[in-house]
């Protein structure tokens, strides 16, 4: 019984191993090579770098697994061992890919870094140069200024158009929709870097963002004295209202008080109303709560309607 259980366990382990192995296995390509490699600088912003490669992962029978999980572009340090940057490729066979480095990530210009197209270590336990790995050691000839980018891209497109047997350039040597699709997949942001090489494209214009602040709004609060501020805060606390609301009601009460005083002294309701309006305006400008402005406007509006109705009533013929 024990032997049978043990045998079943071993068999299950072997089967599991076989299943797992086959799931992660992928056939080697016939060969892998790099056709061209370039490094450009100052392509999008000052100090950035773009590592570009035209490669060929040559399969006689294209695997069903996506190239994105199977192969990658990698930049190694000059020692050839330290992996610096890596990005999956998009397609098998002849194609292009790139790695963009921000100014903060940028590497030493003209240095002898290694650029590789290689199988993913997860799928290819052994990487063999020429079979599932291709390496180029960069030299000064590979390094170009950003101003050359458009011209080099069109040259690369001309090669690919011939090799692919597809139409990716217009008669005027601009990338058509097909060319644009695959070049932007390989070089994200290429349409912003060199918009002139595209037949039609849209790109992001780098506009510095505007930062808003409350400097002006806070200016009104600066006019409020500490005692008045304390009074507003205190009233707000008593009634459980916001400070703006408390300021508003205090302004209204102050306005009515002012109107009453003026009326008592002059017996002129029009003067009284005028002082209320002006008084609210002054209080609002003094910054007693932003809602005081709203109260002021409401009073002006209400008075406008009231006097308008009075005028209409007096001037009607009946």
């Amino acid at each position, binding site marked *: 019984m024990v032997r049978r259980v043990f045998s079943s366990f071993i068999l299950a382990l072997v089967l599991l191993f076989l299943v797992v192995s086959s799931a992660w296995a992928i056939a080697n390509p016939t060969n892998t090579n790099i056709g061209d490699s370039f490094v450009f600088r100052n392509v999008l912003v000052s100090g950035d770098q773009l590592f570009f490669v035209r490669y060929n992962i*040559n*399969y*006689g*029978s*294209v695997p*069903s697994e*996506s*190239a994105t999980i199977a192969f990658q572009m990698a930049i190694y340090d000059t020692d050839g061992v330290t992996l610096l940057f890596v990005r999956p490729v998009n*397609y*098998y*066979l*002849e*194609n292009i890919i790139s790695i963009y480095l921000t100014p903060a990530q940028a590497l030493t210009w003209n240095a002898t870094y290694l650029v590789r197209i290689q199988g993913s270590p997860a799928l290819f336990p052994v990487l063999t140069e020429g079979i599932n790995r291709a390496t180029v050691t960069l030299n000064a000839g590979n390094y170009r200024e950003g101003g050359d980018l458009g011209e080099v891209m069109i040259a690369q497109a001309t090669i690919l158009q011939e*090799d*692919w*047997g*597809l*139409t990716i350039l217009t008669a005027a040597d601009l990338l*058509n*929709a*097909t060319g644009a*699709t*695959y070049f932007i997949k390989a070089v994200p942001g290429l349409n912003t870097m060199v918009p002139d090489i595209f037949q039609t494209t849209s790109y992001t214009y780098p506009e510095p963002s505007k930062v808003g602040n409350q400097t002006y709004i806070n200016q009104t609060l600066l006019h409020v004295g500490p005692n008045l501020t304390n009074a507003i805060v205190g009233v707000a606390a008593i009634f459980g209202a916001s400070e703006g609301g408390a300021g508003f009601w205090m302004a209204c009460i102050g306005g009515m008080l002012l109107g009453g005083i003026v009326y008592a002294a002059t017996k002129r309701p029009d003067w009284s109303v005028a002082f209320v309006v002006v008084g609210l305006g002054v209080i609002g400008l003094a910054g007693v709560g932003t809602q005081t402005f709203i109260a002021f406007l409401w009073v002006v509006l209400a008075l406008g309607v009231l006097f308008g109705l009075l005028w209409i009533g007096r001037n009607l013929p009946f």
Partner: protein
Amino acid sequence: MVGVPGDLGKSLTVDPKMVKEIAASPQMRSEQGSGFMEQYGGPTQYVEMAGMSPEARQVYYSVQAGASTPEEVGVKTGLSLGVVNSTIALLERRGLISRTTVTRESGLEY
């Protein structure tokens, strides 16, 4: 009757994934014109053949080019008769070619 690529399909020019993407996009498809992957028998045929071995493609396209016996396929492709026959059997099973006539001298015609 499909077209025939220059090297009888021994090598592939472009990832079949790209061909599928172009075929699915009206704008990219129109840019390629009516001759898009015509030599391979169209985009669908290209995608199907890209998953097969170079030998299978060579045999298939040599038949398309007019080879009517295993010997003629062998001459056109440079493959041994054994490889040709096994590949023909494979293509038959996949329904890509079929027997049409039996001749006394050379065997099978396709």
